[in-house]
């Protein structure tokens, strides 16, 4: 079956512009996570969604970052007024349910470059 997909695969933008990154989780997976992978910080958790519950935004680095998940499926991560330090690979993952023991399946990521 289809895995987690993300689009675009690469995004180059100018400092100060807004960007939207999209994630399509595996069908039927109720939990969805966003992570960021950068050279300096490694892999960091950003936000997760579980069903219709309020998202856990505890990993978002600033209020320029936001995310939504429509219809319990597709998710969009939005970065407003991008800065050069936002350059990173943004990874999306989904799991059947949110639990410490549940395997997360990762997408290929979106490489964001802020000039």
């Amino acid at each position, binding site marked *: 079956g289809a895995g*987690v997909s993300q689009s675009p695969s690469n995004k180059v933008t100018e400092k100060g512009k807004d960007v939207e990154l999209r994630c399509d989780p595996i069908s039927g997976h109720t939990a969805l*996570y966003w*992570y960021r992978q950068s050279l300096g910080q*490694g*892999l*960091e*958790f950003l936000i*997760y969604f579980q069903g219709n519950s309020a998202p*856990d935004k505890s*990993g978002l680095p600033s209020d320029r970052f936001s995310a939504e998940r429509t219809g319990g499926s597709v998710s969009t991560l939005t970065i407003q007024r991008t800065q050069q330090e936002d350059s990173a690979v943004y*990874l999306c*993952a989904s799991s059947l349910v*949110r*639990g*410490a*023991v549940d*395997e*997360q*399946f*990762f*997408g*290929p*990521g979106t490489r964001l470059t802020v000039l």
Partner: protein
Amino acid sequence: AQSVTQPDIHITVSEGASLELRCNYSYGATPYLFWYVQSPGQGLQLLLKYFSGDTLVQGIKGFEAEFKRSQSSFNLRKPSVHWSDAAEYFCARSQGNLIFGKGTKLSVKP
């Protein structure tokens, strides 16, 4: 706060040699531990996971890991490395979301 440490940033081994990648965790009674592999340009793939029970867990691609509570470790091993194993390896623990170590890059010499 919970954390995961991978002491080795880069390891080089010869093809056919054995491999051990180190991982240490801090805090928490029963950690839920994972090893992921990331090949160049690829997403993260789960190799194996430990929740409870037998402390030696088997994974895909011939990898295994041993959980040692006394040492707060969860080291990844493979008896004979193949050139295709060259990749970056991440140890992680779960609290719902994953907390990752910084990763160990594995290079394989022919």
